[in-house]
Structure formats: C-alpha cells, structure tokens
C-alpha cells in the first residue's frame, strides 16, 4: 500500500469517526446561520468538540473549529490564512480577521466571548502550533499552492476536524516533532511522484 493510499484510508476513517461523533444533527445551510441571532446547535457542538480533551492534539486557547469554518461553511483556507499563496509562510489570521465576521455572528458562543476578550485587550491569541517543520527546512507554502497541492495533502482533513491535530498517521516525539508526517522522506516521496525538485538546496540552506 503506497503512503497515499494509506493516507486516504485514514482520512476516510477520520471522516467516519467524526460522523459517529455526532456532528450530523440538524445541519443548517450557512445562509441560515448568518440570519439567526442565536447560534446553531451545530456551532455550539463544534465548540465543545474543539475543546474535547479526549480528542488528539493540544488544547487551543479558543475553541475554534476548523470543521465548522472550513468544512461546514466552506470558507476558503486562504480567506484566513491569506499569505499562503504569496509567501513562504502561511500565516495565522490576525485577531482583527476573526473580528471581521464575529462582530456580527456567534455573540452567544463561549469561544466568541473569549475571542472578544483578546480583541478588547488588543492581545494576540497564543495558538498552539500543530504543523511544524524543523528550522533547517525552508518550506515555501506559495510554491505548493502554485503547484496546486491541496492543503489537505499535508495538513490532513482539516475540514473534518473540530480539534486540530496532526492526523492519525503521526506519532509524536517528546520534542513535539512529528516523526511520521512532515518528515523528509514523506516530502521527498511527493516530490518524486510529482517530478518536483529533489535537490537538497531546494529546502535546506
């Protein structure tokens, strides 16, 4: 089984798991949500899941659900991670970006209240980093976006995940360095399959 096939299996399993997790009740369309004064049960549930201690991954300071934003609402990844197609660094959205929508939506949600506290204090949100390449790797997001590599290829099925973690084919070192995924062999495999450069100096300098 090639790593890609393996990955697909795992993605499918992850989707099945999240379905079993009870994400499915009462899905309104995004338009409906925006019209409501009170947030949908799905949004509330997504928050709970984003802070689910049983789920893998570190607890984030705000119960932000990628499944809700990227999955259910189909917000483009680049809407928030706006530098990804231009810069080596994908970037984390500023608090202002969050507030762009959330001055209107989700006022009753606990997560949004936490967000507003950061905004009122003009403090950045100290997110826990999940995907991290070592410092001797000069990874360029924009090249991969230009090559039409889907974000999920490296970041896993983010649109399915309430609580973000490295997807399940990853084991963690005590140093928080992902060993199975985002390791060099994994990068090189993909470069090889796509006839991308395999020169060491492409990523290491």
């Amino acid at each position, binding site marked *: 089984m090639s790593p890609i096939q393996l990955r697909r299996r795992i993605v499918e399993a992850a989707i099945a798991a999240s379905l079993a997790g009870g994400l499915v009740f009462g899905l309104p369309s995004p338009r409906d949500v925006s019209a409501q004064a009170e947030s949908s049960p799905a949004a509330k549930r997504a928050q709970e899941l984003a802070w689910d201690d049983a789920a893998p991954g570190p607890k984030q300071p705000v119960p932000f659900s990628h499944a809700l934003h990227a999955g259910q609402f189909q917000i483009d990844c680049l809407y928030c991670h706006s530098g990804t197609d231009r810069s080596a660094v994908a970037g*984390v959205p500023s*608090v202002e970006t969050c507030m762009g929508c959330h001055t209107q939506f989700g006022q009753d949600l606990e997560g949004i209240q936490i967000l507003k506290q950061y905004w009122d204090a003009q403090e950045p949100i100290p997110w826990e*980093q999940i995907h991290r390449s070592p410092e*001797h790797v000069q990874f360029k997001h924009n090249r991969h976006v230009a090559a039409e590599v889907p974000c999920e290829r490296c970041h896993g099925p983010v649109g399915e995940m309430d609580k973000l973690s490295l997807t399940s084919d990853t084991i963690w070192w005590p140093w*928080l360095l992902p060993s199975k995924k985002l390791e060099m062999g994994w990068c090189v495999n993909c470069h090889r399959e796509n006839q991308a450069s395999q020169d060491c100096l492409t990523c290491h300098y």
Partner: protein
Amino acid sequence: MPEFDRREFLKIVGASAGAAATVGCSDPVSKLIPYVVQPEEITPGIPVYYASTCLECPAACGLHVKTREGRPIKLEGNPDHPVNRGSLCARGQSAIGRTYHPDRFAKPMRRGADGKLAAIEWDEAIALLGAELAKAGGRSWVLGGTMGPTASEFLDRWVEAVGAGGRVVYEPFAPEALVGATKTLFGVETEPIFDLSGSDLILDFGSDFLETGLSPVEHARQLATARDAAEAGRRATRFVYIGPRLSMTASNADEWLAAKPGTEGLLALGLANVALRNGGGTEAGRAVLAPALARFDAASVAQQSGVPADAIERIGKALAKAKSPVALPPGAALASRRATATCGAVLLLDWALGAIGGAVQLPADDGRRRSSYRAALALIDSMKAGKVSVLLVHGANPVYSLPAAAGFAEALEQVPFVVSFASGPDETTARAQLILPDHTPLESWGDASPRPGVRSLVQPTVRPLRDTRAFVDTLLDVGRAMGGSVAARMPEGSFRTLVEQAWTASGADFKQLLSVGGVFGDARSAGISLAGDALQLEVAEPLLEGPGQFMLLAVPSPLLYDGRGADLPWLQEIGDPVTKITWASWAELSTAAAEQLGVEYGDVIEVETVAGKLELPAYPRGGIRDDVIAIAVGQGHRVGRWATRDGERRGVNVIEALPSLTDESGGRAWLVAKASARKTGGHYRFALAQHSQDQRGRRLGLATPLAALAANGHGAPAASAAAAEGGGHGDGAAHGEHGHLKDFEPAKDSDPNSLYRWGMAIDMDRCTGCSACVAACSIENNIPVVGEEEVRRGRLMSWLRIERWVGNGSLEGGAGLDPILPDEPIGPVDVRHTAMLCQQCGAAPCEPVCPVIATYHNEDGLNGMIYNRCIGTRYCANNCPYKVRRYNWYDNHIHNWPEPMPLMLNPEVTVRGQGVMEKCTFCVQRIASARQTAKDQQRPIADGEVTTACAQACPTQAITFGNLKDESSTVVRKSDDPVRGFRSLHELNTRPAVTYLAKITRGPVEG
C-alpha cells in the same frame, strides 16, 4: 497605511518565521503568535523595505532597511540615493547592531547617592531635568554630534526657549580645517564636494577618502568609475597618494609618495609651481599664482617634505598635462596645527589646475551649524570655572574622544548635573547623573543633509525595543514640563510632526518622500573667486609638541571610525584592511625603526609623548616612513561588551597621548606630537584575519601592467588568461610543476538540463579592500562573531575574506611562526585585494571526501552545504584548497547573539549549531527567492534579478554575480576577459565558478 500601523508592527514578534532557528536539538517554538491587527503592507514571510538614512558618519548614505515581520534584519544601500547609489560600507551595515545591542538602556537612569545608576520613570526623569534647567538657566549647555537639519533647528530654538547658555556641535573628525580653508581662500564657509569620477589624475594628500574621508562610499565608487578597466587604455586615470603611511586608500593608488606628515601643503604648492611653469593649469592660475609660487621650487620642497625632487617635477608635469586633475586635502590624521594652511594650499592647487567649479564644487553656505573644536574647548573652560550647572550630551562620547589633555573628564567633575542621551552605556554615561536614552536611528524619525542639495529622511522601521524616547521628543517633553513661557514656546506635536512639517512645507507629499528616501538635488559652486589675501597662507612644516624620534600619527580607523564602532562585534572582528589585525590596537612602525628599537612583530613597545604614555604591540611594516608611528583611533574603551575585554580595556586610546591643540581656524589638530618609543619586553599575539600578506608567488592575486592591457586585443583564448599574468610572476614554475592544467568551461559544470550555472566575476582592480562585503555577508548569513581568542586559533567564521597581497611575494624566508612582514616599497604601489569565498568548484575537492554527502554539487552548479546532514568530520575543510569552509566549534549562536540580538537574524538562513560545517552558498536564499518570482511568471531568472549580499554592498561593484549559462549576462561578459581573467589555484583543476580579473598595475605617473 499611516505611520501608526508600521510602528504597531508586532505586539509580539511572530514566531512563525522561526527566526532563531538552529540545526540540531533546541527547544521547538510551540506557539503561533499572530498579529492583533495585521498592517496591510506586511505579509509574514515577505520582506518589506523602508528608505532611511545611515547616521554612522556625516556622509549620510541612503538606506533601504530590510525588515521581516516588523524587525529590521539588514541595512542595504538605497540605489536612488546620490551619495551611495545602493552600496553601503561595513560601518553602516554594522549599525543595525545598535538597535539590538544587549546592553542598551531599558529605561531612563538616574545616579543615586551610592553612585550607581538606577532606572526611573520618564515622567520623573523629565520633571527632574526640567527643574534642573529652570534652576540653571543660562548655566546649562548642550554638547553634541552632527544632527539632521530639522533636529538641529529645533535644538537651536529649544536652547533659546529654555534660556540655556548655548550649544556646541562636536564631531571628532569634522573637516574644520577644510572649511576654514575655503573661507580663507574663497570667502565661502562650506565643505567642498569632490567628484573624482571624471578625473584623469587624482592626488590624495592623505585624506584617506576610501575609508574615513568626507564620503567614503561615494568616493570609492567615483574612483572605480574614473579608473574603469574598459576605459583604462583611453583615459589612463592615475592616482597618486601622498602621505606618511600606506593606508587602505594608499594601497589602491598607483604611486605612493611618503611625504613627511604635515608637509602636504608645501608639496601641493611645489607641485602647483611645477605644473604652472610647464604650462598647466588655468590662465588665471598662471597669472596670479606663478610668481608667488616661485619660492616653492622642487629642490626646497623636496628637502622639507622628503619627497624626491624628480618625483615632484614628474608629477607636476603630469598635472600640467592632465585634462581633469583633482587634489584632495588631508583628513584628520594629518591635520596639524597648520591644517587650514595645508588644506588651503591643496585647494589652491585645485584652483590653479581649474578643478574648482569642476571636480571640486564649493556650494554656497547653507547656514548649517558646524562642528567647532574651539567652541568645545571654550565650553570645557567654562565648565572648569564652575560656570556650567547642567550639561546635556547627545550623539557624542566626549569623555572618550576628547584628548585627556583637554581636561574634559576633570571639567565634568565641576558640573553638578550631567545628562546623557546615549542609547547604550559609554564612557560619558559612566559620568552622567541622568541618562535619557535616545532611540536608535532605526527606531526614530529624523533627517540628514550630507551636503547642500541632498536631503535624506530617517524613518522608524521598528517599534522601539526599549523604553526609550527620541532626543527631540524628550526635549519637547522637558520644555512642556517646565511650564509657563517655556512650555508656550514648544511647538505642537512630536518630532515626527516637526519632520513632516519641515519636509512638506513646500507642498511635497510626505509619503512619496518617505518611499524615495529624500530630495536628491545637486549643489554647484556659485561665482567662486580667489580672495585677495589667499596667498597669505602660512604654509610651512608642522609644529609638533615634545621631544622624540617619531611623529605620532593618530589614524581614524577604517572600521571603528572615532571609536563609535568599537562595541559592534562585526567591526571588531573584520580584520583591519591593512594589517588584518582584529580586536586589538597596534603601533605601526617601519621595519627599519623596529630594528633600531630592537623590537619584532608583536613585541610590546611604550610610546611616550608630552601628553601621555601608551603600551601596545608593534606591527613593523614596509609601508610607513621611518620617522612615524601610526596608531589607529577607536580602541582602548573602558565601557562596552565588545569594546572592552570583560571590562578591562581593549587596546589603547591614542587620543590620550595627544595634546589638545587647534589649527588656525579653531579645528581640532591631530598631528600634534612627537613621540619616543622603547621596547618593554612584553609580547602580544595578534589575532589575525590573514596571517601573511606575502603570497609566495602562488598566483592567488595576479596583476597585469596597463601596457599589456592596451597591447593585447581580444581573441586570446580564455584558458590562457591565467598565463597572461603580467610581470611573469613565477607562473611558469607552477605550470611546469603540475603540468596537467586542464581547460574547462565553468558554464558546463551544472546539469545540462538546468538553465543556470551560478558564477561570479571579481574585479581586483575595483576592489579597494574596504571589507563592506564581509560585513554584508556576515549579517545576511547569520555568521557568528567568535571573539579574539578564537580568531587567534584560526576559527574565524567569516565566509568571505579580503586577502591583501603585497606584490607577488617572495620565496625567501618565512620559516618561523610569525608572518613575513610586507615590504611595501615607496613608489609604484602593487597591493592586490582578493575577495576569497567559496569558489563553487565544478570539481570540488570537498565533495568526494564527505562521508555523508552533506556537501554535493547541485544541478545549478552550486556546491551545496546541507547543515542538517553534516556530522562534523571536517574532512571537507581539510581538503579545501581555498580555506573557505568554517566549522562551528561551539554553539556559536548561544554566545554570539545575546538577547535581543536573535531578532536581527535572517529567517531565511538556518543558524548553524555546534559541530556543523558552513561556508558561502552564493546567497542561495536570495537565488531561491528570485526563483519564486520567476516561477510565478513562468520564465527563467533574468540577469541582474538576483545578486549576492557581497556584490550588493560593494561600493565599487567589484563583484558581479550571475548565470554563466546566459551568454548575454554581465557576469559572462566580465569573466570573458582574455587578459585579466584568471581563476584562483587553477592548476589544481578545481574548476572554480569564480573568475578573478587581475589588478591593473598602472605604474608610476609619467611626467
């Protein structure tokens, strides 16, 4: 976006870029800190450049400050700025370290009853100073360095508003004598502007214009333009250096005349006499001057100056023949008590030759405040007399840079309240009662006007790292805190408001000005005529104090300047351009003098003048007169992390041995003392960046005579270029010995499918040895500074070095451990500067010996060095014939970048950890970044789109980087020089990608 956003840059520095990245094990960054409000011009990961101005010396070069996520990481030249045209000297580049200096004052400081400094709040500090000023009234004074026009005008008004006694501008190397001379000669008080670029005969009377003169970067560029190799046959510009010592500038001359220091004026008049007698110069010159100059005949001038009469005759005749000759008056090192007359004599020579109004412009006085040493001395006198109650010191370190004999330190004792505005500790803050730390220039608004017609803006590029305030803002706050009429006279707003008002008064768009960097006009002479009493100059031999066999020459340091660079580690570690000594002081004396004193290389001598004694190691060399001891200014600090040796003084401060004297116009005289020297018996082991300056005939730096260049047409095969080395410098032996020299085309040393083979052409005729490239390389590539002891062990980390070779060297001697001392004869100069860096060999000896393939040849012809693969066997470094590979013996990043210096690291370059080899990569990160744009536009990288940090910084554009596979590229055109092109150690068949262009030796000037 308005200014607020840029200064709002970062609540906290973004972790996502991984600035302090290291190879090996280190704590991972585990938080992602986004912006609260992301400024619209910032995209994390993409550098943003801001135009600003370098304030390291009065030349005021334009800057492009490269910032990443709101922090400056490198200073580059502004290509549109008329002074430096995109390049920047080593001092300017190292200035970035001021902002990130670990010892900066974090807050205002006040000296308590126990004599220790303690932090206080700004409000308290300002109220305190306000009260003291109110009490002192006219007994308060301001002493400070050069300032921009806006700040200077404000300060004048402020001094008046608070009722202070006055203000003194003090700049140690200010050309006061030169300004005095223009006033005497032409009736205008102004600083002449020299343009060497169109000149065919340049005489430098010891101004050292390539290192510490009026505008070093600009003059270096102009010299290179004047001597451009393509024009060399036609124009044949010659450059004669007249001075007691073969300085860095002199090393670039065609001929060196070792005149007795202080006799430059006599020599200038002697040369003018010969030139005018031989039909040279202007009609007016001949009519007015010829009779008056008759007494300066070659024989008597020769007798006084020590320059042979036939040389005076010969150069005088050359001046007569030259189409556009120019002479530069001496700088600080040779400013004697008759400096005004000396400068006047040289300007008179310029006038006689018709250079005034051409190569020398005398713009009208723009009314700027000029440095006045006489005023500084008067201030010291009133301090001593107890007439000063409050002294404000800004932009200067007078306790260090004024001669001990002037008694400034003692005078300070009589001032009850001394305030310093320094951003970091120095000798003056050590004696201050109150410290109100200023922003560094990278944090502050401001402007500069290097000369009439050119105005340059300073804008903040980072939020202040410490709780500091701009000098002008502090004064505004103090004025307002004083209340009453003083407060009423303070202008509205902040320093920024003042700068904006000053710049937009004419209706200009401030944002537009900020993006360009300033207003760049021209200043020309307006109706210059010789004043009637111009010929009354008392040109004579210098007046020197005290007894002694030697004249003591205090030379402005090319790297440390007046000592202000001593606490910037790069400047300490880049070898002095002449002696290659790092981290120390030395006394230069001639080999004959050393023999007479019985001292050898490194032996400690005691140099005694009427003003004091200095103990320092001797550096005997050929390139200095027998009756001169030269010591560079800049070391001998008592305060500073890098300026001292763990709190002990590093080297000596030559200023302490100088009597405090002025020239005729009140400027500071530096050439004032005789000295005696004796051996002490001690020995000092220098930490050298280059051990020997004798290349032992190894053909590392070649030279070719101008005649060969003119005679040889094009069409000779490139492979014979190395053999075409002029003068037959033992190359035959090299060929015979090895016998298997293979021809090759560097362009073919990359993958046939690749579009690129990166290569370089280094023009040794343009290289002045200034070492700006070394600083650029270090800062671009996060190269650690290792300190004196490690340099002594040969563990200097610099990826790029300037090798200084005196001639082709000799095969004799040199059996001991000490280097063979350079001979450097008086007369024709043959000093060759070779920028040595990784040659990116096509057949690299380092590659096959690496057991883990950490170094390899990539498809674009680069010799890749993959730090994370390296296991540190050092086989590669041992096998490299160029010695350009550097090994991390320690976790240098831990010792080298104390907080907050990691903020200035380039996030695009991995910081190497212990046990890892490193070397020049041809700035592969810059290639990668250019590749992004090219790929996005689906085209190859164009010529000129990518250049290395060293090539970019070079004031003379000696380095050309580009694609050897692109037939139309500049680098191919330059490399393809059948006469001058050669490759270093070609006979080893390493197939280097760097082509050196041999230095052109132009020989003595013909009469």
